[in-house]
């Protein structure tokens, strides 16, 4: 089955680089957390980003969203949104421009839903704080819209009169999703939104995310380390390793025909109920991004490593239609 997206890019990321630069008492460190990432997210699709704890996926998302705080710096490349013409990254646009698009065109669903909802105020007021000035209208009109939206996402409007602490973790996360979608944004960034939830609740929340996305036709950049979630939810999937994208393509294609040795391992190592086959972990350890290995960053752990891998960075090549991979073993004779 193919993805649901229309091939119109909403987000175009080109050779994006973002580094952490720290300076403590003469010890300078530069951690190249995102080092040359290129991909696109189309209209009306969920693009998944998978990777381990040090893969730089969260840094990538922060850079795309323009949430850069020292020591994190955007060093090069661009991340253009179709609704922000003329600026090659949100982080480079002036604050008033950014304020105008936030929530209206771009919103976020984060892991800690408590951080978004004001703990001292009823949920209704969080909606007013976030969305009223974007939607406009009188208070009565706005409240009516909020209630209508709650019903659309299958939440009981009585939730609006609750305090965040009175809601369960799953309910809070549903409320943040409602909050993130009330302005019908073009683009939603979801960073591990279900990681803290129990699996039963997670399933419901993922279903809700997909249902809303279908209805609004917006795009979602969905980050999680959980390959099961990616398989179930996303249309296209990018795999990150050590600050670089190593493979991307349509999700079913990636799962049925993974090309990069790292992706292959990730998928093959997942245990399944009803399957007693021996699974193995990968040898070696994720690289230190302050001193990454030269060439392909996966080569010290790669079962297919060749001499060329230790010196030349493999280019991201469209090996099959719509399926890119950065690996010398898969794309012989290609290099940057």
């Amino acid at each position: 089955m193919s993805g649901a997206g229309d091939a119109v890019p909403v987000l175009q990321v080109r050779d994006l680089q973002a580094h952490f630069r720290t300076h403590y008492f003469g010890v300078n460190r530069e951690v190249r957390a995102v080092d040359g990432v290129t991909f696109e997210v189309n209209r009306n699709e969920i693009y998944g980003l998978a990777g381990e704890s040090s893969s730089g996926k969260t840094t990538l998302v922060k850079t795309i969203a323009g949430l850069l705080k020292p020591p994190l710096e955007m060093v090069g490349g661009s991340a253009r949104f179709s609704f922000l013409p003329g600026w090659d990254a949100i982080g480079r646009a002036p604050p008033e421009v950014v304020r105008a698009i936030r929530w209206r065109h771009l919103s976020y669903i984060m892991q800690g839903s408590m951080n978004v909802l004001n703990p001292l105020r009823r949920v209704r007021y969080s909606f007013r704080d976030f969305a009223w000035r974007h939607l406009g209208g009188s208070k009565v009109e706005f409240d009516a819209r909020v209630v209508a939206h709650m019903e659309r996402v299958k939440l009981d409007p009585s939730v609006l009169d609750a305090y965040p602490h009175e809601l369960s973790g799953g309910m809070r996360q549903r409320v943040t999703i409602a909050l993130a979608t009330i302005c019908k944004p073009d683009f939603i960034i979801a960073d591990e939104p279900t990681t803290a939830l129990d699996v039963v609740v997670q399933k419901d929340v993922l279903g809700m995310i997909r249902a809303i996305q279908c209805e609004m036709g917006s795009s979602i950049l969905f980050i999680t380390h959980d390959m099961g979630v990616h398989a179930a939810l996303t249309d296209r999937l990018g795999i990150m390793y050590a600050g670089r994208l190593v493979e991307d393509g349509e999700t079913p294609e990636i799962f049925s025909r993974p090309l990069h040795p790292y992706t292959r391992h990730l998928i093959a190592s997942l245990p399944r109920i009803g399957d007693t086959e021996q699974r193995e972990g990968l040898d070696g350890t994720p690289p230190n991004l302050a001193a990454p290995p030269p060439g392909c960053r996966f080569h010290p752990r790669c079962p297919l490593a060749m001499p060329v891998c230790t010196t030349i960075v493999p280019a991201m090549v469209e090996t099959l239609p719509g399926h890119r991979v950065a690996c010398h073993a898969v794309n012989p004779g290609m290099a940057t």
Partner: protein
Amino acid sequence: MLAILRDLLRYNLEFRIGLALVAIVLVMAGLSFVSPYPAGDVFVVPPDIPPSITHWLGTTSRGQDVFWQLTLAIRNTLGFGIMVAVLSRVIAIVVGLLAGYSGGWIDRVLMSINDTFIIIPLFPILILFYFVLRDTMSTPLLATIMACLGWAYDARLIRSIALSLKTREFTQTSIFSGMKTHEILAREHLPYVLPIVFSTTMNNMNWSIGIEVTLAVLGFTDINTPTIGGMIYWANQHTALVAGIWWWIAFPVALVAMTFVGLFLLAVSMNEYIDPRSRLARMGGGR
């Protein structure tokens, strides 16, 4: 340790200024050992001479050289501050770490003692001690009393850190590695408390020096031991400001202010350096 000092000197302006100020104060204190005049004696020089070549900071109405008198006064005052700070830190660390880590009835008992010390009014107690002890009141005794009164607030601060350290997994690892309670407190938890201990040390010294000066100005201390407060006390007794002998008051005040600022800057810069997060970043860790 040397490397730490070198790094701080090289990269931290606050530290450099603080160190310079404290160094001046320490040199002053050190010079007291080579003072040409006996410390307690009066009328060894002509009285009421303004600052000049022979008497750099002038002389007092009691016939003492202000400069040499100051060297001894700052030595005693600093010594007093250090004594109070060290003693009260020891109490605060032991009580704070133990209460936070042990919990239960130990915590409740220690914290009720602690809260008693926080709320008892300091000044009347000190004056009461002075009137009861009077002749036997000496600087070490006053320092001990001050230390007993000056630990409670910081102990609560340390306890709150100890409470959160107790719930961290590495505390359980330490327990299941066979460490005893005192080892866990001293080796595992103390490093996290040190930043607060350092900054409160400087603050506590400033606090105790301030109290000592106040008490001395009012005459509630052993006025025969020259201290900064004692100098101001004598200057007031001789109505120095009215008589125009400004240097008798101005220089002690300036020196004690220099001490305050110097200690404060050292506290700030040391704090930044010793903080576990900054330490981790320098070791190459930190996520």
